[in-house]
């Protein structure tokens, strides 16, 4: 399993992401945004968290024109698996690889804490190891995580099983975190090969550090 992690100026979760996938047994390579090709035999591309290009203009907006993104778009169009975490999710939404957009949190705060998530759909490679309705505890850390999609877009997501995760309390009941439509924390594309979520599973890999629910989330990619 070869995982390629993208690194933009301002990315800051690339080493956590590398650690997480290496812990799961993957071979991980971090590549700089000025590259124009993905490493051969890449099985998964991860756009990690951070503040690419300082979040200037909008979070993720400038990264979509980075040289490497043409290769990522082509890879995804050919069915390659792509995961965007936090800023990576914002980048994939800006690029158009994922539907919707991430707005400023409704309460205008940068939210950084552990939060529960409920699995809404596991009919995809990412969450196949989890059960529908299962609750995981994963850190969130974002200012612009307020997922927006219009009413027609939301219907499409529901119809196609593209809503992956929702913010909830520990019992699995819906809980507002940042103002996201339907408390959406993660989605995938219609073809189910591009995934994005605001929470950070790569920061929940060790019980020693409080929680290892991230292992359950990320290991789907290694099956």
């Amino acid at each position, binding site marked *: 399993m070869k995982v390629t992690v993208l690194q933009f100026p301002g990315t800051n979760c690339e080493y956590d992401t590398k650690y997480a996938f290496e812990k799961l047994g993957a071979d991980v390579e971090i590549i700089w945004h000025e590259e124009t090709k993905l490493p051969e035999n890449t099985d998964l591309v991860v756009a990690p968290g951070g503040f690419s290009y300082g979040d200037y*203009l*909008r979070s993720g*907006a*400038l990264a979509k*024109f980075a040289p490497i993104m043409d290769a990522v778009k082509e890879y995804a169009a050919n069915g390659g698996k792509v995961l965007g975490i936090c800023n990576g999710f914002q980048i994939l*939404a*800006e690029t158009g690889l994922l539907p*919707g*957009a991430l*707005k*400023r*949190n*409704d*309460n*205008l705060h940068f939210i950084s804490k552990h939060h529960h998530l409920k699995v809404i759909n596991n009919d995809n490679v990412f969450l196949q190891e989890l059960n529908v309705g299962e609750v995981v505890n994963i850190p969130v850390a974002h200012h612009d995580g307020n997922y*927006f*999609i*219009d009413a027609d877009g939301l219907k499409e997501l529901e119809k196609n099983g593209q809503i992956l995760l929702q913010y909830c309390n520990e019992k699995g009941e819906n809980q507002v975190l940042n*103002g996201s439509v339907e408390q959406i924390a993660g989605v995938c594309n219609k073809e189910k090969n591009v995934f994005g979520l605001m929470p950070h599973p790569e920061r929940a890999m060790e019980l020693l550090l409080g929680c290892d629910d991230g292992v359950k989330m990320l290991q789907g990619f290694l099956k």
Partner: protein
Amino acid sequence: MKAIINIGLKKGVLDSAGKAAHHTLDTVGFKEIVKDVRIGKQIIMELNCDNEAEAREEATKMCEQLLANTVIEDYEIIIEA
């Protein structure tokens, strides 16, 4: 020519910053006069072209490709000589 681009959240998309500013204006004595507050951004560009139609066309392309996220934002382009 100069292009002045005003970008803001679409009608129907909650503008939290506008709402917060509105609330504060209410509390400092403007409750009766202020009906709505929207906060956006303005981008001012000097363009290397000499006719308005071309300037508008190019600025529109820039908004669609990069400057605005049309999933959540509207934009308005003002061209000045």
